[in-house]
């Protein structure tokens, strides 16, 4: 498709592991990302979901060029940005912004809210009509903060309000893409809902595309148009959200969804759940074949020997599994209907 704002092909990031005190030598690599490909279309939200250590945050940071990729290409708005220098990247930064998980460490405590939110204008050398202060105050108002907060410091604000400040900074230059890295997971539920609604409203108003990285499936489901499920540095399944939640084909997706407790006692207690055995394997020593094979209830010899490639098995539905059809015949699927409706 031509209207993608970001296109990632075969993105790989290996972090070296070093040992030794005086002479550091590399003893291995952590495969944080291992051949990840996806695209985000203009104005849409792609959810990137997975458990800790699956590489979802590394994906976001690599795309933003905050860390350099090991291999693969990143195309932003039609331009290959994989190897651009810092100076070459700078003009592009106004179109790609980021919102972080921790609203406490992502704001400089010694800068006023005005300084923080006007930073993008300063850095990019943009002089908005009507002056920076007025524009920033309008943005503050837009994200639900009082324009009079302009001269106050982050320390005066609660977690939810700080996250609004982070959002204000990200939307200041009306970017084309915002990478949201766990933007609501540090917030209480009642505040989380406020911020999710705000993100939705802003997207509608400015047509910004989101890469929404989160571990909470319910949140991702709520906000995304399409969802990619990651496990150990790879995408396991990528499809439209409706399809993912009603017709998921990957055993890991099933397990992940069945693990989320539902806030409804009768439904919660009557559904069947898949409880995965064991922990996530170490990304420095991933299993051979399918990375999920060590925990997969449907594993066969083929899974241990051969890596299943991510392929499009239906229009718009990508899957990395040797046994996609087997999923639909399991008991889970049958009993799963009642919690999916």
């Amino acid at each position: 498709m031509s209207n993608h704002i970001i296109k990632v092909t075969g993105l790989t990031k290996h972090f070296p592991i070093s040992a030794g005190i005086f002479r550091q030598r590399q003893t291995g690599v952590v495969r944080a990302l291992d051949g990840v490909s996806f695209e985000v279309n203009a104005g849409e939200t792609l959810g990137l979901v997975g458990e800790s250590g699956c590489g979802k945050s590394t994906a976001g940071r690599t795309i933003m060029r905050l860390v350099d990729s090991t291999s693969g290409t990143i195309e932003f708005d039609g331009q290959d940005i994989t190897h651009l220098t810092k100076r070459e990247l700078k003009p592009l930064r106004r179109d790609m912004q980021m919102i972080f998980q921790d609203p406490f460490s992502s704001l400089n405590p010694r800068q006023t809210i005005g300084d923080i939110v006007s930073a993008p204008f300063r850095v990019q050398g943009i002089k908005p009509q009507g002056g920076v202060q007025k524009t920033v105050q309008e943005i503050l108002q837009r994200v639900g903060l009082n324009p009079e907060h302009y001269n106050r410091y982050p320390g005066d604000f609660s977690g939810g309000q700080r996250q609004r400040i982070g959002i204000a900074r990200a939307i200041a230059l009306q970017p084309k893409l915002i990478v949201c890295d766990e933007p609501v997971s540090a917030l209480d539920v009642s505040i989380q809902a406020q911020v999710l609604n705000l993100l939705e409203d802003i997207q509608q108003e400015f047509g910004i595309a989101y890469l929404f990285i989160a571990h909470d499936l319910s949140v991702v489901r709520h906000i995304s148009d399409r969802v990619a499920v990651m496990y150990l540095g790879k995408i396991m399944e990528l499809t439209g959200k409706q399809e993912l939640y009603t017709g998921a084909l990957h055993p890991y997706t099933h397990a992940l969804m069945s693990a989320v407790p539902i806030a409804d006692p009768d439904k919660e207690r009557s559904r069947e759940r898949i409880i995965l055995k064991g922990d996530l394997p170490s990304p420095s020593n991933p299993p051979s074949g399918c990375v999920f094979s060590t925990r997969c209830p449907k594993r066969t010899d083929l899974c241990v020997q051969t890596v299943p490639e991510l392929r499009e098995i239906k229009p718009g539905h990508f899957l990395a599994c040797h046994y996609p059809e087997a999923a639909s015949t399991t008991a889970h699927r049958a009993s799963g209907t009642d919690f999916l409706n």
Partner: protein
Amino acid sequence: MSNQILSVENLSVSFKTEDGIVRAVSGLSYSVSAGKTLAVVGESGSGKSVSSLAVMGLLSGSKVNITGEVHFDGKQLIGASPEEVRALRGEDMAMIFQDPLSALHPFYRISAQLIEAVQVHRNLSNDEAEKLAGKMLDRVGIPSVDRVLRAYPHELSGGMRQRVMIAMALINEPKLLIADEPTTALDVTVQAQILELLRNLQNDFNTAIVLITHDLGVVADMSDEVIVMYGGSAVEHAPVRELFYSPQMPYTWGLLDSIPQISGTDDRLEPIPGSPPSLINVPAGCVFAPRCIHKSEVGERCSTEYPELLSVGVDHQARCHLSTQQRNSIRPAKASP
């Protein structure tokens, strides 16, 4: 009731700080029976953790003021000597915490920590205690028990550490387990394992559990009875099905409408406006009134008079000035499916 393990009556906790007195918990009452789970749900700062630390006798110092009664197995704990409480803690009542890495000692092997937990309360030799520790680790689903016994906490994954904590808490088969956000730091698939484990162990040992959480999904999954806390007080107290299908308090409504449901529709979320209150200089009236969208239906009273926790159904209490009629018309009870 004879099988009532813990009963808390009118528990209040306040802290003296430089900015004034923080009323962290005010007038909390509940009880838990053997084999039952009481969930205490609320957002950060609602007093849910502080109240259980007070129950466990883990709050002390000149800056803390605790009043009320905590009866554990017939003994009053508030005002009891530290030695008396210490004798119970770890044996008859145990606690597990959110972050197992900071709750386990980083310098001691798992075996040493488990053995200590046994020997403090029971007269067993090292070998016997270690055998028991191994048995308990096996019981909580740890695959290579011998390796884990010799390991240090940092060598284990988050799920494993939480299992070790549960093993340590349950090794003396306590009558009461207080679990403070036991799965919040864990990934969902591991959370599912741990919740399943707690359920099974509860069945085997007939433990009473006080489960502190902010996750209504976990509440729906695990509890028999629920207390919703806001601003230091219980604002609603009900059997679990009642709470989800016939909630009676605007804050509970707000919480239920704030959570995106994995099985839900794509309806817009309806968040609670504003943010949680400061517990210093708590104003008169209902603590939730500043954020309540229904206070206009009551009028003045919400900001002048503190509502009592009143009975609104069988075993169901709510703290709200709205009349039953008003509540029923705002939010009719869901027919249970």
